[in-house]
C-alpha cells in the first residue's frame, strides 16, 4: 500500500516537473552551449523585429531526445536525495561543491559555495540570497516518503520559508503515503506553517481560494491574483509554490491530472509548483491512479542537472524506501 503511494509521489513529481514549460529549457542543457546561445539570439531577434513568434528550445545538429516530454531538475534532485538519504546532509552536499557540471537552484549553488568556504549549516542555508526558495521542499518529497524529518537537509540550503516549505511538503507526503485523504494531507502541511510567516499566510489564502473555486482549474485566476505579485525575477519561492501545490492538490480531490494541469497554467511558478502538486496528489492516489501514458516518458532521468543520473529509473529508486 505505502509502496504504491510512494511510487505515486515520485512519478507524480516527475509528471509535474515534465509538464511545466521550464522543463524543456532545463533539458536543453544537454545540448551544446552554442545551441542555447542561438536561442538567446533568436530572443533578441524577436525583440528587435517585434515578432510575436517566440523561440522554443530546438535541436539543430543536436539529438532531439532531450527535448521530448520528460523530467528535468526536480526529478533529478529528488533522485539524488534518495541516493544520499541516510548520510549526514552537509557531507552529502559537500561532495557537490566545486563541481562544474552540476546545475542547481540559486539556494543550492550559494550553499555549495558557503560549504566550500567553511560556512556550515545552518549558516550555509541562512547566509543565502535564495534561502526562501523551494529546493528543499522538492527534496522533502523523499523525506516525507521515508517518514523522516527533512529539517537537517533543508537547513543546508535554505532558511525561513524555505525550511518551512520543506517541512510542509514532507508532512503532506508522509500523511498521504500513510493513507490519509488529500484534505488531511493538506491539513498536516498547514499545521507546520505558522500564520505570521509569508508561507503560512499564503498557504491559507491559497487553500481558501481552491475551496471557493471547488476544483483545480477554476482556482487558477484566484491563485494568480492572491499569491503572485509578479515583481521578482525568480518564481521558485516556497511561499508561493508550496501553497499553490497544496491548494490545487486539495481542489483536485487528490487527482494528479487536474492538479498538475492547473499548476502548469500559472506560468510564473510552472518550474516547480506542478511538480509539488504532482507529488502530493500522486501520493494520495498511488501509482495505480497515475495516467498510464505519462509513466514511460517521465520515469527515466535525463542528467540535465546531475549528469551521473542520466538514464536512472526513478521508480527503481523508490525501492529502497518501501
Amino acid at each position, binding site marked *: 500500500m505505502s509502496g504504491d503511494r510512494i511510487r505515486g509521489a515520485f512519478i507524480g513529481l516527475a509528471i509535474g516537473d515534465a509538464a511545466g514549460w521550464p522543463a524543456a529549457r532545463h533539458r536543453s542543457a544537454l545540448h551544446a552551449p552554442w545551441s542555447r546561445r542561438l536561442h538567446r539570439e533568436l530572443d533578441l531577434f524577436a525583440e528587435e523585429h517585434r515578432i510575436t513568434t517566440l523561440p522554443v528550445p530546438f535541436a539543430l545538429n543536436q539529438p532531439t531526445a532531450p527535448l521530448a516530454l520528460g523530467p528535468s531538475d526536480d526529478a533529478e534532485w529528488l533522485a539524488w536525495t534518495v541516493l544520499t538519504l541516510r548520510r549526514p546532509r552537509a557531507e552529502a552536499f559537500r561532495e557537490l561543491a566545486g563541481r562544474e557540471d552540476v546545475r542547481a537552484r*540559486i539556494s543550492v*549553488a*550559494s550553499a555549495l*559555495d558557503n560549504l566550500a568556504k567553511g*560556512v556550515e549549516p545552518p*549558516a550555509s542555508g*541562512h*547566509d*543565502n*540570497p*535564495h534561502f*526562501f526558495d523551494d529546493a528543499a521542499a522538492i527534496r522533502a518529497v523523499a523525506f516525507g516518503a521515508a517518514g523522516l524529518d527533512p529539517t537537517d537537509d533543508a537547513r543546508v540550503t535554505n532558511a*525561513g520559508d524555505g525550511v518551512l516549505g520543506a517541512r510542509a511538503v514532507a508532512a503532506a507526503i508522509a500523511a498521504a503515503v500513510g493513507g490519509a485523504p488529500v484534505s488531511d494531507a493538506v491539513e498536516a502541511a498547514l499545521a507546520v506553517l505558522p500564520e*505570521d*510567516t*509569508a508561507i503560512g*499566510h*499564503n498557504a491559507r489564502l491559497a487553500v481558501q481560494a481552491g475551496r471557493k473555486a471547488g476544483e483545480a482549474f477554476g482556482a487558477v485566476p484566484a491563485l494568480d491574483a*492572491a499569491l503572485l*505579485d509578479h*515583481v*521578482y*525575477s*525568480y518564481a521558485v*519561492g516556497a*511561499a508561493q509554490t508550496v501553497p499553490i501545490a497544496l491548494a490545487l492538490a486539495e481542489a483536485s480531490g487528490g487527482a494528479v491530472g487536474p492538479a498538475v494541469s492547473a499548476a502548469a497554467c500559472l506560468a510564473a511558478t510552472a518550474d516547480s509548483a506542478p511538480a509539488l502538486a504532482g507529488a502530493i496528489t500522486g501520493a494520495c492516489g498511488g501509482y495505480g491512479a497515475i495516467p498510464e501514458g505519462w509513466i514511460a516518458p517521465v520515469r527515466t532521468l535525463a542528467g540535465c542537472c546531475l549528469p551521473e543520473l542520466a538514464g536512472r529509473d526513478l521508480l527503481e529508486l523508490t525501492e529502497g524506501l518501501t
Partner: protein
Amino acid sequence: MNHRDRARGCLLGLAAGDALGAPAENMTPEQITARWGRLTEIEGGGTDDTEYTIFAASLLLRHGHALTPADVAAAYRSEIIPLMTGPMRGAGFSELGTVQALRRGLEPPLTGRVHAHGWSDGLAMRAAPYGIFCPGDPAEAARLVEQDGLVSGDGEGILGGRAVAGAVAAAMAGARPGEVADAALAVIPADSWTARAIARVREVLGDISGTAGQGTTGNGTTGQGTAGDGIPGDLGRRLHDAVVVRHYPWTDVAPEAVALALAAFLAGEGDVEASVTFGVGLGRDADTIGAIAGAMAGAFQGEAGVPRRWAERIGPATGKCLPAVKGRHVLDVADELAKGR
C-alpha cells in the same frame, strides 16, 4: 563640531556617494579601475538612495521616537502609492513588492515578508536619518529604523538597516571608525549573515594593515590610495571574495552592501572622499555602498569633510524616484533633523 554640522555632513556625504556611485552600479572593481582609475568626480544626479532617505527623514520629523510601522504604512499609502502613475522608477524589488502587498490590503510585518526580497539593502540605504536623530544612542537608532523596515523588509534587510543606523548614531557622537563598526555590530545579533559579513571584511582589512579601522583624525590626508589610483592591489577582489554571493545576479543584498560600505569607511579611515571613492570602486550596488559610506564618513567629519566640488553638485531632489520628495534639499532635511530630535 556641533550636531547640525555632522547632520549636514552625513546627508551631504550620502547624496554625494549616491551620485558618484550611480554610473558604477553593477560593475566589477576591475572594470571600474579600467574605466576611471579611481572614480572621483560626480557625473550625474543621485538616485533612490537620496530620495528614500529624504522620505524616511520626513517620517521621523512627523512622528519622532513614537514612529510605528502603521505610521510608515500609512505614509506609503498616502504619499507614495497615489503618485505612482506608471513605473516605480528607481525602486528596488523590495519597494515595489511592498507596494503590491499594501495594495492587496496587507499590513506590516506581512508587507515586508510576502515578497522575496526581505534582505534588500533598501532600508540600509535610507537608515542614516535614524542615526542622525539618535546621536550617541545606536540602540534607539536601530529600534527606530526597524519600525520603518518592518513595512518593507525582513530578516537581514532589517539587520542591515539597524547596523547602518547604529553606525551613523555612533559617528554622530564622534566615535572613531573602528568604534563605529563596533556600534554597527552591537545592534545586530552575532549569529547573523550581516554580522558574519562585517567580520569577514574586517578580517581582510586587518590583513592589509594592523591599524585599519582604528581611525585617525580623518583630515583627508590618510586613507587607502589617492585620487587617480584604483583600489590598492587586489583589495577590491579580496573584499568581494569575502562577502559577495557569486551565483546571484542581483546586487542589492544588504549583508553584502552594508559590509562593503563599512569596509570602505574603515579603509578610508573615516575620510569622506577616501571612503566614498573606495566604496564606489567596489562596484556591485555601488550607489548604495557609496551612499552608506558617505553617510558614516560625513557624520564623522561633518559638512567640511565633504569635498566642495561634490557639495556643489548636490541640488534639490528631482523626485524622479519618489515624487513626494521633489524639491527637498538634503541640507534642509539635515537642519530639520538636527533641530527636531
